[in-house]
């Protein structure tokens, strides 16, 4: 027995709020009740949002920037008018739209911006005005590891990031001295989402999903979500899943609804399928500079159409066809 066996010192406690405190026992009970049967979950976007997303939910989106984002589902969520959402601010373009639509009360924040194009004016307006309540700071790794903790079914993960910074001070992490090595570690609390939204290359109607190329944080977020909504470029037969079970990143029992959304990441890109619609995205960037412009964007490109299929019609088949890639990158099929 060493001295530290008497107890582990807590060296620092982040002052940020724990917006979604981890309750692993409740998560286990919820997961137990989810059906393990192979039932058809293919539905339309409106039904998926209606049945599985409530006002006040804590929600998260994968992937990042304008890459493989569940934009079709995000627009459906905005049309459905869900309110007082709390979000993991790592999705970027979806978060932009939700903030523009005034749907967000609290954010676990790591990055909401336009990457090479700089700051997001939607974020600036929402946060500089105080319209958003809790804003708790994290890093990309920290938020991903928080999902991973939930995915592992443990209430925290120890890490060596955040330490010594204001990011940690404004987070809800705790710093302890390691009981095995004595080094300080930042403990990141598990983040269990009420609803996760993920866009994938292909899924079967039961919810088994494959993703080509990088997997971002899909594996972790899918497992950290109580309810999980999937949009997919392509719906495949289960036989295609069973032929290559080592490609199933998200097994069906995690999934509540599957929505068929070709060009579901538009105006973002989808690896091996289509490029980002930079022309449209630049227009969005231009419009979002003012609150009026952002509202006009939502009116024209979200509310003006009833659903994703109608939006694709509005964008135009020729325009979309020009974004298509001839040759797949990353994962050859």
């Amino acid at each position, binding site marked *: 027995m060493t001295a530290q066996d008497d107890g582990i010192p807590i060296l620092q406690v982040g002052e940020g709020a724990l917006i979604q405190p981890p309750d692993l026992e409740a998560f286990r009970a919820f997961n137990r009740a989810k059906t393990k049967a192979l039932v058809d979950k293919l539905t339309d976007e409106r039904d998926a949002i209606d049945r599985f997303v409530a006002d006040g939910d804590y929600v998260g989106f994968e*992937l*990042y*920037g304008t*890459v*493989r984002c569940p934009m079709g589902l995000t627009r459906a969520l905005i049309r459905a008018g869900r309110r007082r959402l709390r979000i993991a*601010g790592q999705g970027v373009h979806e978060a932009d739209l939700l903030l523009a639509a005034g749907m967000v009360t609290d954010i676990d*924040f*790591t*990055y*909401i*911006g*336009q*990457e*090479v194009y700089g*700051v*997001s004016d939607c*974020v*600036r307006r929402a*946060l*500089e005005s105080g319209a958003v309540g809790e*804003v708790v*700071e*994290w*890093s*990309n*790794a*920290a938020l*991903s*590891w928080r999902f*991973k903790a939930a995915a592992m079914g443990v209430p925290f993960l120890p*890490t*060596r*990031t955040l*330490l*010594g*910074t*204001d*990011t940690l001070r*404004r987070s809800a992490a705790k*710093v302890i001295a390691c009981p095995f090595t004595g*080094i*300080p*570690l*930042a403990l990141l609390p598990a983040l269990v989402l009420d609803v996760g939204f993920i866009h994938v290359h292909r899924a079967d109607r039961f919810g088994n999903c494959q993703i080509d*190329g*990088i*997997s*971002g*944080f*899909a*594996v*972790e977020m899918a497992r950290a979500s109580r309810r999980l909504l999937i949009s997919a470029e392509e719906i495949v037969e289960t036989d295609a899943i069973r032929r290559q079970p080592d490609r199933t990143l998200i097994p069906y029992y995690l999934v509540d609804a599957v929505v068929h959304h070709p060009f579901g990441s538009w105006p973002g*890109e989808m*690896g*091996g399928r289509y490029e*980002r619609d*930079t022309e449209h995205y630049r227009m969005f960037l231009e419009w979002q500079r003012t609150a009026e412009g952002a509202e006009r964007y939502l009116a024209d490109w979200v509310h003006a159409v009833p659903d994703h299929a109608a939006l694709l019609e509005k964008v135009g088949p020729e325009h979309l066809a020009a974004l298509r890639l001839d040759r797949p*990158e*990353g*994962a050859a099929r």
Partner: protein
Amino acid sequence: MNDRPYSASELLICLASRLMDDRTTAFIGTGIPMLAASLAQNRHAPDLVPVFEFGGTGAILEKLPLAVGDMRTYHRAIAASGICDIMETAQRGFIEYGFLGGAQIDRYGNLNSTSIGDVRRPKVRLPGSGGANDVGSLCWRTIAILHHDRRRFVDTVDFVTTPGFLTGPGAREAAGLPRDTGPYRVVTNLAILGFDEVTRRMKLLSLNPGVTVQQVIDNTGFELLLADPIGHNDPPTAEELALLRERIDPDGLYR
């Protein structure tokens, strides 16, 4: 710099590129680091291993990525995994360099990309850490690329998003950050700066073409240490410019 045959961006790209050693791993962020990495692969560092935080490792940067997750970050890559795998690889000590940006930097290389003013009611809300804190925490040597002026090179950053040497010698280790890590270089439109081994304070190492020491001092909001002697950075070579303009970014996306 209109009298020069290269732009300010091109100079930054070339300076950053030359810092990328062959056969090393480097975390690449959006923008200048992507161009610099591509230039390095095309010129002196064919075996540079670019690492992108959302999963791309060892891509061949034939086409310029537009975002840290886009499909060019794993074009003909060695591996396409996910952010946890990449960040854990950094946490295990496999990533040598990390490239960073920011709105403010202080003498110890601490970076702010979170907010100007109090973060609880910011004057300007910036995009946030993203992977920056992780890169600054877990890589061996970080290289910051910034525009050089007194609004950015400040006495005290409004928010330490990403750790430099924090409050000075020993502070990183005391906080628990991995041993022997920290800021390595700051590349600006005026100069290349490093950090004193003992005091951990920022030090002017070498000047960009046509820039004077006084200019650097005038544009820095804290007292700079000065290397002796202070070196001079070569301008972009014709080869570098040709590669950049003809092969790497022919559409001038980043010009």
